[in-house]
């Protein structure tokens, strides 16, 4: 079985995000970019499946600017076997929308015929949480979102999902799209031998035109603003005062 893992290049989670002066978005020029942390978890899970003999090949795919090559190299250094880069824009501030990404991934799936797609539940840049679900709709495959455990048994996947009320375990027919949550695993560091090998692994470069997909935006960002700065709090003496204050504020 092949496992396909889409990975997105996003602003590094350590970077303090700054809104652009014109409010058109977040400033991404000269900021540290990294692999979306949820995607790292997906890559890790795919490699573990391979190590456990449940998968033969792990393919990482990224859609975006050419610099996403670095993100793919990271996936290769972690242990993915090969990578596909679909260069869909040359502007770092252009975010390819989930539907276009899902359509491109569908086209890659048609070509590669993977048995499983492992993707992050969302990207930490704009937190859409949509691509996996849209991809499941386009392919007609089973979908299991927010996975905190994935077991492959024959042609089924047993997935434990993190839902509001707790944990839910479902059994889905493969092929399937599984979106992964934070607690699924702890991604490994890229080992030195794998870092050295990564350069030699194949990285194929494509364009949306190769797949006949239109990536023109359908959404318009009206305004981006900084979250309101938190007002200074008050220190209270004890729990009784806290409860009284909360009542006063109408919070309880």
């Amino acid at each position, binding site marked *: 079985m092949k496992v396909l893992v889409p990975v997105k290049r996003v602003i590094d989670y350590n970077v303090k995000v700054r809104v652009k002066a014109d409010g058109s978005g977040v400033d991404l020029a000269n900021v540290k970019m990294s692999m979306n942390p949820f995607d790292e978890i997906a890559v890790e899970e795919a490699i573990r499946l391979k190590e456990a003999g449940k998968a033969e090949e792990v393919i990482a795919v990224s859609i975006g600017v050419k610099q996403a090559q*670095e993100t793919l190299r*990271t996936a290769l250094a972690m242990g993915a076997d090969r990578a596909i880069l679909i260069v869909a824009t040359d502007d770092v501030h252009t975010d390819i929308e989930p539907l276009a990404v899902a359509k491109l991934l569908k086209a890659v799936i048609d070509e590669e015929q993977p048995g499983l797609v492992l993707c992050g539940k969302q990207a930490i840049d704009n937190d859409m949480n949509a691509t996996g679900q849209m991809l499941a709709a386009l392919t007609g495959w089973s979908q299991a979102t927010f996975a905190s455990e994935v077991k492959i048994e024959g042609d089924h996947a047993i997935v434990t999902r993190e839902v509001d009320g707790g944990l839910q375990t479902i059994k889905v027919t493969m092929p399937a799209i599984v979106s992964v949550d934070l607690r699924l695993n702890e991604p490994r*560091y*890229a*080992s*030195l031998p794998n*870092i050295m090998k*990564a*350069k030699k692994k194949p990285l194929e470069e494509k364009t949306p035109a190769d797949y006949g997909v239109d990536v023109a935006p359908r959404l318009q960002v009206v305004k981006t603003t900084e979250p309101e700065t938190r007002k200074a709090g008050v220190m209270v003496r004890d729990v009784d005062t806290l409860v009284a204050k909360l009542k006063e504020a109408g919070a309880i």
Partner: protein
Amino acid sequence: MHFGLTGEQEMIVSTVRSFVETEIQPHEAEVERLGHVPQELGDEIRRKCIALGFYACNFPEEVGGAGLSHLDFTLVERELGRGSMALVHFFGRPQNILMACEGAQREKYLLPAVRGEKLDALAMTEPDAGSDVRGMKCTAVRQGGDWVLNGTKHFISGAEHADFVTVFAATGVDETAKGPKKRLTAFLVDRGTPGFAIRPGYASVSHRGYPNSILTFDDCRLPDAQVLGVVDGGFDVMNDWLHGTRLTVAAFCVGRARRCFDLALKYAAERHQFGQPIGRFQGVGFPLADMVTEIDAADWLTLSAAWRVDEGLPSNREISSAKLYASEMLARVTDASLQIFGGMGLMDDLPMERFWRDARVERIWDGTSEIQRHIISRDLLRPLGA
């Protein structure tokens, strides 16, 4: 000219940095308090480093190392500078000098050291011979087909964990026009060899969890098989393999300075006095400007010296410049960063006071600042006949 890192170099830096942040930094305060690294903790770091393929990454591939260039290894060392010296000791970088091992020595010392099965240490310094290595009093005398070592070494790092030590001893004297000159030989000495003892050294202000030891040799008998390199060839072995340690000190200082600076910068932005972030006062903002300028300068000086070594260009002077400047820069940066923290900078709740103390040794070991200036000035003046 191109000043960027390659994709691989970026990944090496990122892996080592994450390793230091998650596997080293959380244990630093405890190690500092204990004054040593608990065996289990050291073993765990060593095991994880081996699994990551970074152990002995400074060694060539044909002996099981990763074959990193001097530049790549300098980047690794720079990231390790963000962690405690005591703990990153277990992110093993055995002494390059072991590459001089030949024949059976390779199986017995070199390969196990590269695999992380044996730890080594290096002993040159003596109570009466520091900068003046040639003045050493430790002797190895020929007796019944063996060598008999007598003398004392002190300030030896890593000896408390070492399975064997590379020891330099005088094996003869040449009469020269400038007076008598000792000939040195390097020996591989196993822990437990009769007549060889490792005793705790002095309590040091810097790197508290990284003890130094005193080594004594009392009629310690060694067969010829323990000679590293050739008899009387100690200086050649030293010159061939030890110039790199000055580069690692420089790189470590740069990494340490960045970590220290990052904390000071953040504090200057967050700490308010007189109704504004203290960083807005020139008295705080300008030192930050000076610090980052000096750190960058030391960084490039170090990387370019490493690059020269890789290119096979003359680099002795450049390596000394890097070691000198980076270690002196670290002293200024740790002091100025601590100052930004005000009174809290002195308290052991924060790592600033530790960085400030740790920095002091960097100007002393692996050749004092004065010795570096000596190397640099001689390199400049000797060709002019002065």
